[in-house]
């Protein structure tokens, strides 16, 4: 996880030191965002369109059957009622009023009607005054006056009347179908048939109502006309909203019953006060849709995650390569700049040294002459003092001379010899020169030499000077009892690497870039500041590289890499 995060988060240390966000971090983030946008936005668009189309299709699949059932049930119920109304009309139109007032004949008609249609409880004939003049059925209703009853008045107004379901004195839910016969006062009558609700319940059940559905009839006052699974027995109250009148079947999408959602299909039954209602539970129907939604969402999330991971991985790889290429380019430019600077300094130093040498030689000779003259002269006043002065001049000239010779050594172009050199043996020779100092200062020297170290072809004399300078410097940096580790290893690129590590005081970071420049020294009064610049010059001539790593208080490592220069 840590590695992944490190890979994902690019830290530009130099930028961070300046308080700026990482350039590569920004590059990574912007690339990921851009590529993710290009890949994910079309995916989301396609998924949304697909979702919408599928939703429409699914909606149709759900609602069409409800509408179909509603329409079929409407037609069944209307046929059911029409058959009974037609039968009543037939009786009224065929039979004479006096025959209809005859109870025996009426009983015969009831018998025939029962044979043809189920659900007929009784029939009766009411005269224009509202008195039951003839009755056939299980109750004793002969002579009963219906003048005050609502159905009687409605029947007088209309030719055919179908009542709401009511209990009445029969004490079970029933409804009546009444047909009026027009005529003179004696001839005018109302033929009335009482029907139980079972016939209508059967029509509703025939529609194939399933487990998660409820289907029933209500009237416009919201009273149940048939039993309902959700609202109870007939004549109970339907708490839902009564749908507005429509000739055709209608569908309402969100009907809430006891906090559950239902689709509601409704249809007004012609020539009756009945409204057919069918309620279909959302949950049952939507299970398939919800499962589809879940699957689609899971696939979408997984796809987006997979795309993001892939984009991040590829972007990480790209940005890493760019960063590595940038670092390589920067390092190359830095090396070129450093080499050019050193070459310029070298040329300048050589010119200065050469020009200084001549006047220095004159000073030397003049001071020497004064010394000579004083030497052959007899006793002179202040002779000793003058001799001391000339001695100081000559010493200073020697010091300057040493510096100019070293400067010229740094800059001069010497031919590089190409002789077989065993680097480990050469370094042991160099250490031999410093044995006494190491023993005196109790410095331990450890050498780690690779088993497969090849013999290189290089300039022995210059290599001796190179390692003498580096080891001398290391000795200078170490305290008494310090430890110097020299590791020599063969590199796969036909090179040999020599690492000289001391446990001395270390070099401050700000000095590390300058240490190879001429006259740069940290030794205050002791050094000329030319040792490492000469070392650098030698490494360049031998076509090698030199690097330095240092930590204050922990020590310094110089890493010299030399080509094997195998003879072809």
């Amino acid at each position, binding site marked *: 996880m840590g590695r992944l995060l490190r890979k994902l988060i690019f830290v530009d240390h130099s930028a961070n030191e300046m308080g700026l966000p990482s350039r590569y971090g920004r590059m990574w983030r912007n690339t990921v965002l851009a590529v993710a946008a290009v890949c994910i936005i079309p995916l989301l668009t396609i998924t949304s369109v697909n979702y919408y189309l599928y939703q429409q299709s699914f909606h149709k699949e759900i609602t069409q059957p409800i509408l179909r059932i509603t329409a079929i049930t409407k037609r069944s119920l209307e046929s059911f009622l029409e058959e009974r109304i037609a039968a009543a009309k037939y009786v009224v139109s065929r039979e004479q009023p006096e025959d209809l007032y005859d109870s025996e004949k009426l009983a015969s008609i009831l018998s025939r009607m029962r044979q043809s249609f189920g659900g007929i409880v009784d029939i009766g004939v009411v005269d224009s005054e509202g008195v039951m003049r003839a009755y056939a059925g299980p109750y004793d209703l002969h002579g009963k006056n219906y003048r005050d009853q609502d159905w009687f008045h409605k029947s007088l107004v209309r030719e055919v009347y179908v009542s709401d379901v009511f209990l009445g004195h029969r004490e079970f839910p029933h409804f009546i179908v009444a047909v009026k016969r027009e005529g003179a006062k004696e001839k005018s009558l109302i033929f009335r048939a009482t029907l139980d609700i079972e016939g209508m319940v059967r029509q509703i059940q025939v529609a194939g109502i399933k487990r998660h559905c409820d289907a029933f009839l209500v009237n416009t006052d919201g009273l149940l006309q048939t039993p309902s699974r959700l609202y109870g027995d007939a004549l109970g109250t339907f708490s839902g909203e009564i749908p507005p009148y429509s000739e055709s079947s209608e569908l309402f999408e969100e009907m809430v019953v006891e906090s559950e959602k239902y689709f509601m299909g409704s249809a007004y039954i012609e020539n009756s006060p009945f409204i057919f209602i069918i309620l279909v539970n959302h949950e049952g129907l939507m299970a398939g849709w919800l499962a589809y939604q879940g699957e689609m969402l899971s696939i979408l999330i997984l796809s987006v995650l997979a795309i993001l991971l892939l984009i991040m991985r590829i972007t990480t790889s790209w940005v890493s390569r760019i960063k590595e290429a940038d670092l390589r380019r920067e390092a190359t430019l830095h090396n070129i700049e450093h080499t050019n600077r050193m070459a310029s300094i070298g040329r300048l130093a050589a010119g200065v*040294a*050469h020009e200084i*040498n*001549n006047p*220095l*030689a*004159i*000073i*030397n*000779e*003049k001071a*020497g*002459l004064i010394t*000579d*003259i004083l030497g*052959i002269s007899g006793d002179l006043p202040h002779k000793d003092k003058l001799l001391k002065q000339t001695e100081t001049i000559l010493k200073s*000239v*020697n010091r300057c*001379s040493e510096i*100019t*010779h070293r400067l*010229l*050594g740094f800059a*001069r*172009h*010497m*031919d590089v010899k190409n002789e077989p050199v065993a680097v480990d043996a050469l370094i042991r020779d160099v250490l031999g020169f410093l044995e006494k100092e190491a023993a005196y200062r109790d410095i331990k020297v450890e050498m780690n030499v690779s088993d497969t170290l090849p013999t290189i072809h290089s300039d022995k004399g210059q290599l001796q000077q190179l390692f003498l300078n580096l080891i001398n410097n290391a000795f200078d940096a170490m305290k008494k009892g310090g430890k110097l580790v020299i590791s020599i290893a063969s590199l796969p690129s036909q090179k040999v690497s020599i690492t000289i590590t001391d446990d001395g005081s270390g070099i401050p970071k700000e000095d590390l870039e300058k240490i190879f420049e001429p006259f740069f020294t940290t030794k205050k009064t002791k050094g000329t500041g030319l040792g490492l610049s000469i070392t650098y010059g030698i490494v360049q001539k031998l076509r090698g590289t030199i690097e330095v790593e240092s930590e204050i208080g922990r020590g310094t490592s110089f890493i010299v890499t030399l080509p094997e220069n195998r003879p072809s």
Partner: protein
Amino acid sequence: MEDGLKVLLIDDEDDLVSTLVERLEIRGVYAVGVNTGNQALEQVRSGDFDVVVLDVKLKGEDGVEVMKRIKQVRSSLPVILLTGHMSQEASEAGFKAGAIDYILKPINLDDLILKMNEAINLYKK
């Protein structure tokens, strides 16, 4: 004291040459100082010098070329090159042209006298 030793000094710095001449004379060395190649050739033709000390870089002249001309006049005359810094290329060219030794500026006079004596002894052999 180096009695009897005759040396020709050639350097374009007159101050250096005159002072060196004086110092050598104090040590009993007979020295003649000149500043150019032509003057040097004249001296070689007319004088009887045991050794020549020649600056590698004369004003407008190449010391090694001057040495070659001296050698044409007197091939047996040992020449010690005087130089600010003896690079390997310069030393090889100098030795190829017949120089017997070299000495660095600023000059250590004792070393110079030693080198002159060694050169003369070597040529005598």
